[in-house]
């Protein structure tokens, strides 16, 4: 398992490739890889967003992310997981979060990846502050539940 909090921009596809080639836990063993990449948009709640600052609780964040992977391993047969999350100043189009999960089979990879991103969204101590184009800043108040069906 690798968990990285990144102060600088990263290329999620390159990170996946590096991990996939070097992690002995998965090399020649995995048959399925599931990936979630979260990217910053230039719009939120109907307002244009110019930039964002991400704050986190150093120590607790890493501890909670490790726990989510551990919880996923208890529920699904996964070989390994990689989590990267940006902090500091972020611009639209930049990657905020990468979750990659390797397993023998797709069901475990998909379900564990989904579990980890939903756990991160609701329990990992990160906070976003948006800088609006109107030179105005605001804290994002909460994340929505990813399992809610918006089309009901």
């Amino acid at each position: 398992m690798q968990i990285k909090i990144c102060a600088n921009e990263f290329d999620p596809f390159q990170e996946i490739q590096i991990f996939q080639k070097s992690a002995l836990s998965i090399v020649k063993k995995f048959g399925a890889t599931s990936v979630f990449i979260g990217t910053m948009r230039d719009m939120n709640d109907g307002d244009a967003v110019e930039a964002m600052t991400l704050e986190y609780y150093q120590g607790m964040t890493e501890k909670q992310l490790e726990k989510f992977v551990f919880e996923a391993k208890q529920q699904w047969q996964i070989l390994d997981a990689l989590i990267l999350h940006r902090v500091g100043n972020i611009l639209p189009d930049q990657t905020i979060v990468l979750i990659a999960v390797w397993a023998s089979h797709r069901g475990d990879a998909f379900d564990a990846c989904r579990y980890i991103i939903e756990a991160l969204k609701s329990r990992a101590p990160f906070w976003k502050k948006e800088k609006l184009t109107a030179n105005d800043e605001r804290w994002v108040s909460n994340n929505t539940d990813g399992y809610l069906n918006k089309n009901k």
Partner: protein
Amino acid sequence: MSIKVQYFASLKDAIGKSEDEITGEKSLSVKDVWDLSNQGHKLPENTLAAVNMDYAELNDNVSDGDEVAFFPPVTGG
């Protein structure tokens, strides 16, 4: 006993401090820690708490040397 207290994000802005250190004679709950550190300020609704970097309830007890944190709902990812 001595407790290190940390505040984050909008809560930190609202109360105007990012950390604190409190001391108490008797056994303290997480809520007592908030009250001692923020005399007169009501604990905002939806505030989350952690003790030693694990989520905690307001009525959980704290021990000497613990790190207690208060923060708003998380918005990462």
